[in-house]
């Protein structure tokens, strides 16, 4: 009972923004930020405890290479110092490098080599061949559209133009699905606010909106 009521109150506090910006929304927003900060700190400290304290202090691996990572991690905080901020560039560079190196290792195969393999255009089933041709054309033309190294002139112009149409199909699909995704969030919340005890909170919210309107009109 109390759970549903609390949930519906916080949902309505946030949704009150759809009527207009107001104190309830801002309280909800501040609360969300505060809670998110606390969660981040709690889980972050847990990770550091498990990764640093347990191996180094509990397991007494005093000369673990983990200490270098800890030193690098602490170096990041020099960004708050005006004279030592440049030190923070070292761990950030290492972190960015590792991230990009790992991503590139996977991307070459998954995003380039494997994607270049398009099925045969000459198949027993004519529809499969035609579909493969459409796959090929849409892939090449949309890629051509992003070739900003060359101006879209001459032979590249119609190809890039066709690329726009290819991408319109792809963006149309995404737009339809984007709406579906976003309304899904609201749909999952609505039962809480239209069934008792959430309904009572909703009635109070509606009364507040009516009163606010009457005050504004006066």
């Amino acid at each position, binding site marked *: 009972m109390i759970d549903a009521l609390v949930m519906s109150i916080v949902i309505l506090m946030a949704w009150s923004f759809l009527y207009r910006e107001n104190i309830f929304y801002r309280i909800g927003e501040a609360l969300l930020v505060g809670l998110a900060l606390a969660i981040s700190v709690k889980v972050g400290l847990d990770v550091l405890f498990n990764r640093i304290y347990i191996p180094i202090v509990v397991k007494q691996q005093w000369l673990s290479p983990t200490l270098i990572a800890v030193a690098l991690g602490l170096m990041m905080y020099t960004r708050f110092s005006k004279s030592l901020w440049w030190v923070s560039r070292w761990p950030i560079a290492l972190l960015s490098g590792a991230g990009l190196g790992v991503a590139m290792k996977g991307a070459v195969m998954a995003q380039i080599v494997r994607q270049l393999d398009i099925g045969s255009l000459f198949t027993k089933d004519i529809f499969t061949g035609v579909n493969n041709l459409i796959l090929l054309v*849409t892939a090449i033309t949309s890629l051509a559209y992003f070739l900003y190294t060359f101006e879209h002139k001459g032979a590249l112009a119609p190809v890039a133009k066709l690329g726009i149409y290819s991408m319109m199909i792809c963006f149309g699909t995404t737009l339809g699905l984007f709406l579906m995704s976003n309304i899904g969030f609201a749909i999952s919340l609505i039962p809480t606010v239209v069934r008792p005890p959430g309904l009572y909170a909703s009635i109070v919210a509606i009364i507040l909106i009516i009163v606010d309107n009457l005050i504004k009109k006066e």
Partner: protein
Amino acid sequence: MSFLRRIEIPIILFAIGSLLPLIDYYTGNLSVQASELLSWVVILVTFSYLIGVVNLFRYHLNNIRKGRDVYYSVLVIGSFLFYLAIAYLNKSIYDWIFSKLYTPLSMSISSFVGFYTYTVFLRGARLKSPTAILLLIVTVVILLYNTPSIRALSPQLITVGDWIKNVPNTGAYRGILIGMGISMIVLFMRAIIGRERSYLGGG
């Protein structure tokens, strides 16, 4: 000291960080070092994550000091300190706040995009040009194709929707994916030779 400030040092560190996993993957050498690096990343990411928290905290403390949005900043810091204390004092209340307060609040704010997408449909989805017509036809077909009850009533719609999704849409996305992959390689090359330095935050 001035030597340590040179830009070449972070560029070399970037190169080491990026090349180790690649050398390990393509040659099988330096495998132990690559594994060690990856476990360092876990710690570095956590430290960098906490920097975000420190930044936000500083922002709100600054607000209080300057008398700007004081009440909201006090609420942010107050709820932060309260919830952090609860996290270590009472796990069941911590879990309850997460499930019944934080999750619905977070979902409600995420749901705004859904409401505003509808207004975009009403105000912005205009059949003005051939590309817009194509975009909107596909949007409508995909919306209906993904409507559970309409799917159940119209098998033809499933055929059309499946075709759009699996053929032209996949083809165009494939072009985009290849483009992204190539861009990543270009970015990597530029960073290795020191032409790309945005990851260092200026300088």
